[in-house]
């Protein structure tokens, strides 16, 4: 949806990204699998996009499962003109 705020989750490895999908699915957090945007530095090419409103629950689920300690990044983005735009300097470190 145009103007929608999203959060991009990136991981230290592909296996972390795939394990995170399972946790989010079990937690009923909708997500989209996307290639890691070039603006975000990461070792893994798989990123997940969640609604901004779900950022906190996603973080909680990943922390609780041990998938995310300090090595998952949460970056703010917005859908503009149908494109996902990463907001500069927007790493959400809580």
């Amino acid at each position, binding site marked *: 949806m145009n103007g929608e705020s999203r959060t991009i989750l990136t991981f230290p490895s*592909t296996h972390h*990204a*795939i394990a995170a*999908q399972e946790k989010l699915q079990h937690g009923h957090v909708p997500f*989209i*699998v*996307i*290639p890691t945007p070039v603006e975000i530095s990461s070792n893994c*090419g*798989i990123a997940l996009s969640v609604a901004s409103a779900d950022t906190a629950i996603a973080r909680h689920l990943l922390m609780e499962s041990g998938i995310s300690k300090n090595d998952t990044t949460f970056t703010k983005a917005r859908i503009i003109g*149908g*494109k*996902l735009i990463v907001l500069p300097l927007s790493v959400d470190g809580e």
Partner: protein
Amino acid sequence: MSTPIDAKGKACPIPFMLAKAQIDAGETDFIVEVDNKAAVENLKRLAKSQAFSTSVEIDDSTFRVAFLRSGEKQKSDNPAPQPVSNGQTTANYVVFIGDDTMGTGTHELGRNLVRMFLYTLDQGEDLPSTVLLMNNGVKLAVDDEQCIGTFKSLQQKGVDVMVCGTCLNYYHIFDKLQTGTVGNMYEITQRFLAAGKVITV
């Protein structure tokens, strides 16, 4: 109106070709009898492309598809690239997806890769004219929520997502198709032959 053409039990794309032969022979009012929904959809699409109207009667397991044309014929066997509402245009190339994963390896990685490929395609400016789904690839339009969403987005931008009806039948998932247009080998082959290039995933 001539005697109904009995195409019951005929494998795809025979019903389509029998109807096409009638049209090519100049018939403007005829009926084709088939016994499966895929054939009905193929016949309806053929009718539309040839400026025929159709009506369908169901009698037990027989579908009677009536073709009727009045006025000028508007042939469109090879649809041209279409401009779309948001300024993007579809280009003369086809993306062929023959599996529900991308590349050779584990299924979970391959499924992630195909989701990301389609997402990236949808985000881009140069859209294909057609995405063809065959064999296991049809499952992406049946049970993969993300891919289904992407296919719908692509279709809104003018991309034709064509799904192999034979494959849906084989896997017993015809009734579970969530998006896309069911096509037969006759139509799929036409898309290949008309394409400037084909990208196989």
